[in-house]
């Protein structure tokens, strides 16, 4: 819903214009679905543009490892609570997710990478992030099926930057579910419509 705020009057004091715009992200990493049965955990981190700053909250973390009992879903309910402030609207924050698994034979493996951007509208959002994992040669895939330890990315640059992404060969993995509540502050003063 587009909302127009009334234009501020010209008698406005200078102090109003130095108020920063802030974004609150309060939510949780709910869980996954569609991954093969194993104990899954996720490493998540927040990626910001240049003009953004984390005021309060931790911007990266790791969930617990959860083994699914019912079907192929696992549940983390890992809290995400962040307070960001920004100088401009470019470089909107993104969440980088890496899902690993550890099964009962003790194999630790990469299960998927995914990126999802933080919604720009205030309110409660339910997000689904579709993940992928890199694929190796046929021999490596057979080895991964029996022993674990498939190919992993050497640097997380490939996930979020567009420079060399075409060199990747990937296969689809499961889904990660997130629930985020967004609160925006002071964006109307700068004429930003969201």
């Amino acid at each position, binding site marked *: 819903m*587009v909302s*127009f705020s009334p*234009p*501020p009057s*010209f008698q406005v004091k200078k102090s109003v214009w*130095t*108020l*920063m*715009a*802030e974004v609150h992200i309060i939510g949780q990493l709910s869980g996954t679905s*569609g991954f093969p049965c194993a104990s899954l*955990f996720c490493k998540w981190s927040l990626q910001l543009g240049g*003009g953004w*700053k984390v*005021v*309060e909250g931790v911007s990266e973390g790791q969930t617990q*490892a959860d083994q699914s009992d019912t079907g192929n879903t696992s549940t983390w309910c890992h809290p995400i609570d962040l307070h960001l*402030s920004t*100088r*401009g*609207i*470019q*470089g*909107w924050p*993104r969440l980088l997710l890496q899902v*690993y698994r*550890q099964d009962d034979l*003790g194999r*630790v493996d990469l299960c998927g990478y*995914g*990126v*999802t*951007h933080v*919604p*720009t*509208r205030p309110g409660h*959002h*339910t*997000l*689904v*992030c*579709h*993940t*992928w994992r890199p694929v190796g040669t046929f021999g490596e895939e057979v080895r991964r099926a029996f022993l674990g330890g498939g190919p992993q990315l050497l640097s997380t640059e*490939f996930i*979020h930057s*567009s420079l060399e*992404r*075409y*060199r*990747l*060969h*990937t*296969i*689809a993995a499961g889904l990660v579910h997130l629930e985020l509540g967004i609160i925006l502050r002071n964006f109307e003063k*700068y*004429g*930003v*419509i*969201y």
Partner: protein
Amino acid sequence: MEPAKDQCAYYFAKERITNLQIRVSLQQLTGSQLVAVSPRDLEVGSGGREEEEIPLVPLANSALPLAESTSSFTQHSVIKWQHKLLSPCEIVEFSRPVYADNPKYKTLHEQAIKHKRRKKRKHRIFTYQHEDHYQYQNESCVSTSKKMEPMSWLRQRKNVAENTAALRSQDTGESIHTTEKKSNKKYADDTSPHQQYFYIMADLAPTENLGETQAYEVVLCELRFDTQGQLTVTPDFTRPATKPHRIESYGADNAQYEYKIENISPIRSLEEHQQEARLAEQLSKQRIEEVHQVAGLEWEDGGERKEGEVRLVVTGEITRALHFDDASSLYVHYALYLPPGWSSNSGSECEGFTPSCVVSYIDGVPTANYSTPFSLDLTRHQSGRSWPLLLLAAYSVDWLGRDRDEGYASFTLPTPGDTGRNDDNESVHTVAMWRPAQTSPLDKMRRFFLGGCQLITDFTYLALPVSTQVERVSRLGFNTVSSGSVELRVSSVVQADFTHTDYGMVVETPPGWQISTLAVIDAFNRSRQKLRAAKQGL
């Protein structure tokens, strides 16, 4: 039965806890005392006693005759925070002459010698300070199951540095720890790690074996104080103690012990309270200022914008591609089409490729997951018209390495507030794709065996540009066939300078109905005045 951890209590202290004092009473229960305090006995008789009160029967004043001649064990101690009391095993260990010259253990050695010389009744209550690193032995279990936790280096990375440093210093007496001598201090200083542990223990070995082995040590109370000022006490000591806790020794004598823990910290004077309150206020004010400073960044426009210019910032990702049946692996090429009057600012990726993804069947649907982010930063000048488009093309790579076109589509960048039409996933837009069709069977076979792309050279077939002279667009004769669809999740934000544009409405000519109402009222008034004048004239 509740898990034992639930008996712990949390207290908050604003500063370091230096005046914490705890009194611990440990008593061995003899056979007759056990009978005296059994619940069955309470119910039956001896009317004077209340139900809740089970007094610790002091040894000397026991009304019941004692069965054994040997006296049972009783010890009361008053313990302060991080107050070191040596255990019987430690007394034996540290009184060895090998510790006499070691500077680190010198004080402990002297204490041990003193204890041995005194030769009074045995002490069973002792403590482990934070430096004794008992927490690493105790903290390893998270549940009551005996399942070994698998070694996972991924997850232990955070604590490895701390653990190895602690384990290295645990070699008692073998190697001299060359780091700071602060470990001799009894009270912790501000450079201590996150949590400080303090254990009150008891050694429940049978009397003749006291001091030989550490196997009989039992934790009576565990205190943990972390840097936020939170003190965790397990089990709690301020609940009104109904029954003393009972523990059983696994030694040869199968003795039963009871212990009680009380908090007898001296209360600070009112002045100190006020001082502390003032200090806490100061600290919180400082913290609020800090937060304001960090968050108080000046707004930067990121490029000058003249009047009437609108800035569109789009963040999104190409999430996945669905329903591409006859492709083995797929990648999507996206390019931005800007109508005239639009320009892109720095930092926007106007063109890109997704990784190529093998198509696999998830829930019966051939899917390729991309999750490829893109961000666009565009400015529309005053002369700009229309709205930019994202052009998408999907290509498949087969096992011979050939590229083949699978679909083309164009996607209008959404305006702010436009949620996708996908029900279960919001702000997801599904874009259906088509590809140029092969009409003759020969063409179809050629496409199947040889592959190859039929690239669209004229992109107006995807999206119609605004500045077209023709008034009627005809695509007659162009055959296409539908292929799969691509999902994108996009959010957009618009920034415009509204101060210079006057959006207020000029209220000179009110809307139609108001004119007529006013006119009617005017006319009525005029006619009434005329009537009056006419009446007066009569």
